């Protein structure tokens, strides 16, 4: 969900405390938590935090399945939360009963396998829309406008992610992004293939190219707002009118966690509104923590692409695990990638 495709795994050791040898190991998406949150946690509890990063749910799952131990906490997307539960990789935390859980908006307790938040804590959410160069793309509003740029001979990029990209086709055709009907999936792939002319690349590294004007518009995450706030005259971010996908990650404790107690403390720490707000301030994404909304900077809270109106929210679709039917997307994805 985050930008680092070729995830350089970095280990960040924060605020070493000579007195305490206790550590908490986080395994998170690249650039997906405000370092200040971790510092605040160390300050309050005396527990040192280490952070490793991954670039996709599958990469994280593959590592954990292959027996990577030493991590206490992971940040899977909701559908991966379900998968990890089914594989028996998650530990019970009873976070849903912890004091402060009433801060969490119940609509974000999404994982089907964890309806009472016995395992994981909803972490953050956002949508996947379009970041565009104002001079090149003009005032675009929809996926149709986005692909029209390509038809005009301007350059656009799509994410190198099979479900996100086929998802655009499904949304434009009015279908569910979790469709398991082979005809619908094929029609979605055909929509992308019919509009492939202007697609110059499938990539995650598109924002710098949108800023420089090499690309007119790019399929990208709500986190683009961070760059929009730095270059407000050059680029913009929209949620397309037809709808878009949304994502949500949860904070989960691993069954193999070496320090479950510290992990539990971290989950409870993250229930605090001021901590959730501190994270939003740097990440520019959505938090499920209701009282935190009042604490975040006005510019973020009032940004309709970060906190959309209910009408727009209703048009956002979240991915579910497709099980075997993922293979329908797999072969269509190869077809898209080889269409020129």
């Amino acid at each position: 969900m985050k930008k680092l495709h070729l995830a350089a795994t970095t280990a960040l050791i924060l605020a070493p405390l000579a007195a305490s040898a206790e550590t908490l190991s986080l395994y998170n998406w690249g650039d997906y938590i405000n370092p200040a949150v971790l510092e605040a946690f160390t300050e309050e509890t005396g527990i040192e935090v280490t952070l490793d990063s991954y670039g996709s749910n599958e990469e994280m799952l593959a590592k954990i399945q292959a027996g990577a131990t030493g991590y206490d906490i992971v940040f899977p997307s909701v559908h991966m939360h379900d998968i990890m539960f089914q594989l028996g990789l998650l530990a019970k935390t009873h976070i849903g009963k912890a004091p402060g859980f009433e801060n969490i908006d119940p609509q974000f307790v999404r994982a089907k396998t964890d309806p009472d938040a016995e395992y994981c804590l909803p972490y953050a959410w956002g949508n996947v829309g379009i970041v565009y160069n104002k001079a090149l793309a003009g005032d675009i509003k929809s996926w149709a406008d986005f692909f029209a740029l390509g038809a005009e001979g301007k350059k656009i990029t799509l994410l190198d992610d099979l479900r996100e990209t086929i998802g655009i086709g499904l949304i434009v055709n009015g279908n569910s992004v979790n469709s398991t009907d082979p005809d619908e999936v094929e029609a979605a792939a055909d929509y992308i293939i019919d509009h492939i002319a202007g697609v110059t690349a499938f990539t995650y590294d598109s924002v710098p190219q949108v800023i420089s004007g090499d690309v007119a518009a790019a399929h990208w995450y709500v986190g683009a707002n961070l760059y929009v706030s730095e270059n407000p005259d050059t680029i913009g971010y929209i949620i397309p009118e037809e709808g878009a996908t949304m994502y949500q990650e949860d904070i989960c404790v691993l069954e193999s966690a070496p320090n479950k107690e510290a992990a539990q403390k971290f989950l409870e720490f993250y229930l605090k509104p001021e901590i959730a707000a501190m994270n939003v301030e740097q990440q520019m994404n959505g938090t499920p923590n209701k009282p935190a909304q009042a604490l975040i900077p006005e510019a973020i809270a009032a940004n309709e692409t970060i906190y959309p109106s209910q009408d727009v929210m209703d048009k956002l679709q979240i991915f579910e695990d497709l099980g075997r039917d993922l293979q329908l997307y797999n072969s269509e994805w190869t077809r898209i990638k080889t269409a020129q």
Partner: protein
Amino acid sequence: MSLARRKFLQLLGLLGAPTVFLLVFFFGPLLIMLVYSFLTPGLYGGVDWIFSHLNYGRILGWADTRYEKFDPVYIAIFLRSLRLAALTVLASLLVCYPAAFWISRMRPGLRDFAIFLVTLPFFVSLIVRLFAWVLILRPTGFLNQGLMGLGLTDAPIEFLYTDFAVILGMTYVFIPFMFLPLYGSIEKLDMAQIEASSDLGATRLQTFRKVILPATMPGIVGGSVITFIPALGNFIVPSVLGGAKVLMIGNLIEQQFLSARNWPFGSALAMLVMTAVLVLLIAQFRLAGREERS
């Protein structure tokens, strides 16, 4: 201890370690891959131990189920990878052959420094170097700005996200692989033979074709093989410089193991690459053997 027994033990001592090494690090993984390629994908990655020949059917033409369908696109991607890898070999040969000649004629101190320079890129992460190429090749990049500044072109030329960028990137990455074996055989070239050839009236071209080229052939073949093999399976260069639109077989295999969670199909594709590589290696040994005999 009998002589035969001692010889046997000596041989065992000599060959034991490399044999174990090969078994563990070459045949072991290969065998796992072969077995996996005949199984059914596990729901969340991994494999289910149910026999299936459909992974090959998808590539070669007999699969037709809800999830496994034959598609000629896989063979097409494989052929494209072969072509891109072959062009990469050709391009690196064209760069390295004259360069190796030139460096081998330098005075020793300078020569060692030049060889050090050839291997220098290995000291920097591949990803960083490839992203540097993105900055060079993109429409507002250094190359296009240079060309437009010189008035050679009015509009930016499409370099990035093309076959050209992929071949350029792979050539850049694999130059040291090609250079070192080539340099090894060019350095050993006997100058007396070249002089004798021209003394006997051969033109420069004749000397090159009849004397220099045959003498350096082992380096050319060796360099080509160890460039071709990793180029064929490369997936980082097409992903970064090809914009994942110039899809190579390595990208397809990566997709099966990660986002698509289909290890058996990935294994079947990998076996296809392995077969191509083995055929190439056998051909090389045959060729080398024939040359030695003649």
